[in-house]
């Protein structure tokens, strides 16, 4: 039960578990943002849940194509803001009228007026922190180890290549069928990535043993 909960929470952060054969998932390369978006839409429509896209730049409309709901960071941010507001109100009251009451030109020890700037600043500060931390948490970051790094080709995700990744942990995942679907969607290159987290791979980068090339289409120059 707890294990399942943890697994789905991690899947929400795009951290997937590999199957018994240590297979992490299929990495399919696409030639441009449009085909990637189309592929993501088709993958979502086919009922896949554990999949992700990787591109060198944000693609407008991709979250919609992937069927992602609106980000929940806002709620974390709101919680941070409320905490900041409460903390600042307490700070102003406790320091001003309990811990060290000082008479400053006859002003009350605690009043809302001079406290508002502090309340405002702490609200903003903590909601900003909450937003950044919440964003990182929902994205599963920082993530120094990701099996996808084994693929030499995957480095191009920050340069000129567009990837769709389908995890083996997805209920719908079937090696043959998923491969066939990626092929049909126009993937240029499909790799099976193996999770060798237990194997020492030196600097943690490319490891050809972990990558099994399934399909490659010769691109016309």
């Amino acid at each position: 039960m707890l294990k399942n909960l943890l697994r789905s929470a991690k899947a929400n952060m795009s951290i997937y578990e590999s199957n018994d054969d240590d297979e992490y998932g299929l990495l399919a390369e696409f030639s441009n943002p449009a085909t990637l978006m189309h592929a993501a839409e088709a993958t979502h429509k086919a009922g896949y849940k554990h999949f992700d896209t990787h591109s060198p730049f944000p693609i407008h409309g991709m979250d919609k194509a992937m069927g992602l709901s609106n980000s929940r960071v806002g709620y974390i941010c709101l919680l941070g803001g409320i905490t900041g507001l409460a903390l600042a109100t307490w700070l102003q009251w406790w320091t001003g009228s309990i811990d060290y009451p000082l008479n400053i030109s006859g002003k009350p020890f605690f009043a809302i007026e001079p406290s508002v700037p502090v309340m405002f600043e702490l609200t903003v500060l903590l909601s900003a922190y909450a937003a950044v931390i919440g964003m990182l948490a929902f994205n599963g970051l920082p993530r120094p180890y990701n099996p996808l790094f084994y693929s030499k080709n995957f480095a191009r995700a920050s340069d000129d290549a567009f990837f769709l990744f389908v995890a083996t942990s997805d209920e719908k995942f079937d090696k043959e069928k998923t491969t066939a679907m990626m092929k049909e969607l126009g993937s240029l290159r499909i790799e099976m990535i193996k999770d060798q987290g237990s194997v020492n791979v030196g600097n943690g980068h490319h490891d050809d043993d972990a990558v099994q090339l399934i399909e490659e289409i010769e691109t016309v120059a």
Partner: protein
Amino acid sequence: MADIKSNSFLFWLGDPLRATKDEATESYRFTGGSAWWVVPLVVGAVLLLASFAGGFADHKQFFFSYLVAWSFCLSITLGALFFVVVQHLTHARWSVVVRRLAEALIWAFPFLAVLGIPIILGMHDLYHWTHEELLDPTDSHYDPLIAGKVPYLNTPFFIGRLVLYFLVWTFISHRLYTLSIKQDINPDASIRGKQYKISAIGLVLFAVTTAFAAFDILMSLDPHWFSTIFGIYFFAGSFVSALALMIFSNALIQKRGGMLEGIVTTEHYHDLGKLMFGMTVFWAYIAFSQYMLIWYGGIPEETIWYRHRLEHGWEYHSAVLLVAHFIIPFIILLPRGNKRFLPLLTFMSVWMLIMHWFDLHWLAMPILDLAQNGHAGFHWLDFTTWIGLFMAYFGLFMYRLSRHSLVPKNDAHLGASLRFTNS
């Protein structure tokens, strides 16, 4: 270039350009009948006439009510001018499809200048500093503070400043309005540069004139008191109400008139809503900044202004202002979904328009009560002048919209605006 000047002076107040509607793309046309502008104009005229009649019974009340109503329309127009200027300066893409609304709003300056005549006629009732006896050291009413401000606060200079403000505003808005409509019938590539240029000059002129207009028209009602942030306070409310009126009128012509269907989308409403939300917070920020500094300083000449607004029933108005002009809109407009839900956003735009009027009422009316030992509240003239003036203003706004394309169809960024999404 085709001549697009209108020839009749009376109609010049409504629209300085000839109708270009026939040249507009079909889907951008105003399809409503003339009732769209005739009805508000007639309702406005009737209410204003009733107010004038009421003014004979209580002219002091009339002038104060009228000042609030007139400032309300003026501030919306100023907010719209700022909107247009900023869109050009930032080369904004998202706003192109809604920009024509703001462009139609800004040609209200000449009309408001004409309707400003009652303010000049009522100066003696409105502005305490116009009373001669305050300046005479031998008189028992001598007021050294006001006498010391005579170089600035004197009738000829005051009227001269108002004339200057309106000349500047009319000049900028005439330029922006005609350039944009010229572009509709003649896609001249040089127009964009001209719009940019007048916006750059216009922004600077706008900032100075708006601040000083706020000092003159509203702050000098209480000539002892001064606050350097007052101009920004007025501007913040202006921009909120201009955005609110844009949202409201857009929703109105879209849902009641069936115009701009699929052209102005949820995405554009969302952005207008975001700006309205942001400016509501900005208004509160400025209002509080003014209040806190005066509270902290605790100097009697400054605190007295708030004192007047915290007694004789005005404390309830102040509380309503805080809750309904800031806290409620803040909570309602904060979630993304609410800004994308048009009925709620339209409701909030009407809400903000009412609150902006309430804010101006709160600025001006305690002065009248002070002079008459009155109590907080509303007089029927407050509503008839407000609704009357606004209806006439709105009627002419619709009149301008009905004569031209509802969208600047040759704007370089129109395509980007039509495709715009908040992702």
